[in-house]
């Protein structure tokens, strides 16, 4: 019951957050230099054509009127019409959302699969060569820009060895697994480096804790100690970090989806910004805000499951 109340409270708290996001993004896109009418009609359009387009889009209305329309329409589930795509913003976002979600979930899964076992190996071999080797390799991953890692993977694994396709999305679940492996791995190499470092440090701290030493002294099996006492406690900070990483990952899709020609929300955001497509930028920002808020909520819920001392208040 307390859990349900907590979730409801958090959901209510999201309302002012979204309102703030809406105000900020509404003003920010309009502060950008550049004219959506030029983006629509092109540089060659006459001034009269541009004035007519601005009028048609309602861009000549006072800012307050425009914001009120944006707010009331959004509350009714209408994010408006995309200027560049001439279709419903919601429709475009819903069309691209599954690809980005697939990419994000795939990337997070790969990050955990890579970081988890290696963090254990490094922590259990603290100061010895496996630990040094793992940390050195991940240091390289951390210090290289995401787009560069992406291009390297594309060049060697896709273009030369032909193990994966060069960009694109793929059809169906397995098709997407195949096509989105390289972009997910590109993101995962970076994210897993951060998670591995954090988890390793947390594991070392927990391994040194008195209750673990006591469990060892009692002769409890290592698997039980690691699974029940060490991992569970070490995961608490890592889950927080993972939640933050997913937030970063959402903004990282702008680069990854462009390099790998993945038609997702990140690439759409980039196109919308260049085209000064105000309704689409606003709709996408709201979508990202919702996704990140949901991830943070899930992170908090998961943390409370790991550590009952963290009460849901």
């Amino acid at each position, binding site marked *: 019951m307390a859990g349900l109340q907590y979730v409801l409270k958090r959901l209510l708290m999201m309302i002012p957050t979204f309102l703030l996001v809406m105000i900020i993004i509404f003003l920010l896109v309009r502060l*950008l*230099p*550049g*004219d*959506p009418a*030029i*983006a*629509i*009609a*092109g*540089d*060659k*359009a*006459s*001034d009269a*054509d541009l004035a007519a387009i601005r009028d048609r889009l309602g861009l000549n209305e006072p800012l307050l009127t425009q914001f009120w329309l944006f707010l009331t329409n959004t509350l009714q589930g209408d994010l408006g019409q995309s200027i*560049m*795509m*001439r*279709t419903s913003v919601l429709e*475009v976002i819903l*069309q691209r959302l599954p690809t980005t979600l697939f990419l994000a979930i795939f990337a997070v899964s790969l990050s955990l699969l890579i970081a988890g076992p290696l963090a254990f190996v490094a922590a259990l071999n603290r100061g010895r060569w496996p630990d040094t080797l793992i940390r050195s390799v991940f240091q390289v991953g951390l210090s290289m820009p995401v787009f560069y890692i992406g*291009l390297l993977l*594309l*060049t060697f694994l*896709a*273009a030369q060895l*032909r193990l994966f*396709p*060069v*960009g*694109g*999305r793929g059809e169906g679940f397995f098709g997407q697994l195949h096509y989105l492996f390289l972009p997910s791995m590109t993101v995962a190499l970076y994210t897993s480096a951060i998670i591995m470092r954090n988890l390793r440090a947390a594991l070392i701290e927990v391994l040194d804790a008195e209750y673990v030493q006591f469990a060892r002294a009692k002769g409890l099996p290592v698997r039980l100690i690691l699974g029940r006492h060490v991992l569970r406690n070490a995961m608490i900070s890592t889950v927080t970090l993972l939640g933050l990483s997913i937030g970063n990952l959402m903004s990282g899709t702008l680069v990854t989806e*462009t*390099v*790998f*020609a993945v*038609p997702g929300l990140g*690439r*759409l955001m980039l*196109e919308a*910004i*260049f*085209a*000064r497509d105000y309704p689409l930028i606003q709709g996408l920002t709201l979508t990202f805000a919702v996704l990140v808020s949901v991830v943070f909520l899930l992170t908090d819920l998961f943390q409370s499951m790991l550590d009952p001392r963290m009460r849901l208040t």
Partner: protein
Amino acid sequence: MTRTGMIAALAFTTALGAPALAQERGGTLNFARYDGSRLIDPIYADRNPDIWMVGSLFDTLLRTSEDGNTIVGGLAESFAGADDGLTVTLNMQADLKFSDGSSLDGEDILFSLDRARNPDLGPWAGMLGNVENVTAEGNTVTLSLSQPDPTILAMLTTFNTAIVNKAVFDSAAGATDAERSANIFAAGGAGVGSGPFFLCGFEQGASMDFCANQHYWETGDDGKALPYVDGVHFKIIPDDATRVLKLQAGEVDAVEFVPFSRVAELDADPKINMNLFPSTRIIYSPINARETRADGSDNPLKDVRVRQAINYATNKEALIGLVLQGAGKPMTAPLMSSATRLATNMDLYPYDLDKAKALIAEAGFEPGTTITLTTLAGSSDDATIFAALQQMWAGIGINLVVEQVDGATRGAKNRSGEFDIHTYGWVDDVNDPSQVTGWLGYTPVRHAVGTGWESAKFNELFEASGSEMDQEKRAAQYAEMQAIYAEAAPLLFMYETPFAVAISKAIEGYVQTPLGANIFSRATISR
């Protein structure tokens, strides 16, 4: 009627006269594009990714030959203009059909041309501004003009005059023409167009499919209807490196807009044909020629001698080497590419540092004065241009600094005059120099491409050329306009570039025209 035009497309007559040859047919051509189409409708297409695809779905009454210099028949097999220049008569081919097999007749032509010249609809209506009336009787279509128009035949080859199916528009959902057009495009399928393909798949920003129009009128070398391929599948890959990798991995057959830094590498690849199609593309930089800058401060570039000096101080061959790896040529016609009809070819500001120094000293330019070059953020070409110009112009005392913006911001600055110099480019949409001349020099259009430069004589010549039917007199008017423009130097004249398209050797017959249109109708695949 003395100006009887070219009769029938060359290909058409050749096909009739030649014996049927074994011709590779079938297959889907996979083509990687730098940007996706948004709406391919003749009158609403306003971006190059849309404009350049119109011809694949919609045919025009007339066409331009592949070299861009001659007007030949299209849906109209012959055409003629009256002596007084006030009438154009077109004789349509017999038995024309849309892609769903329904017949294409006079009503469709009237409907399409009425749409094209309606100023309340698309932005291109002005091109047919002199058309007063269109009538169709049997196979003959007649255009009556309000004044002689030397560009009218070229306009009938232009994408916005392509023919659409009236019946499809009449039955489409939507309250306005724009809504009906958007709904027809979204639904796809055969019927609306008369071109060699019809739209059979579309995912905004991701992919697009063209399927062969089985009812297309034009025949191939084997005497059967074009196109040779079953269809074209487009993938949208904005990133240059990824697009090229896609071709190298064999996942697509062709990639457009190959970065010039990759041309040599792809040219050396035995599986790839690296094509540099001649184009009307010019790269130039408008110079703010106003008395004062937008902030009210004195504008050193108002002095024609300073503008001439920076043109003389620019080593165009070096720029071409750095940016295009040699795959280009300096601009020699001041208002257009040298491939455009009526272009004068002159030695346009050859690199001459001494002359540049003399001019800038004569103008009293204070050494060390800062000039800002506005470039596109993220463009490696622009970054190279800036670095090179900074070095070159330091020799005449200019402290060149850079301001990086995105395309929309650059467009807004061009209109408001908030710039010193900015990078820019142009590709003709019309096979006539009037469009680019109006854009670059005629004040009422866009203040001479935003430079603020104005010449009453130039404007007068441009207006007179708009109704001059004597080709020699018109050529003389254009020569004079170009001389005025070159002397005034409202631009930094830079270079012409080809269209770089890398194509698998399995593909033959693909063409990109000097106006940029992608022509797939004669492309073949031999896997």
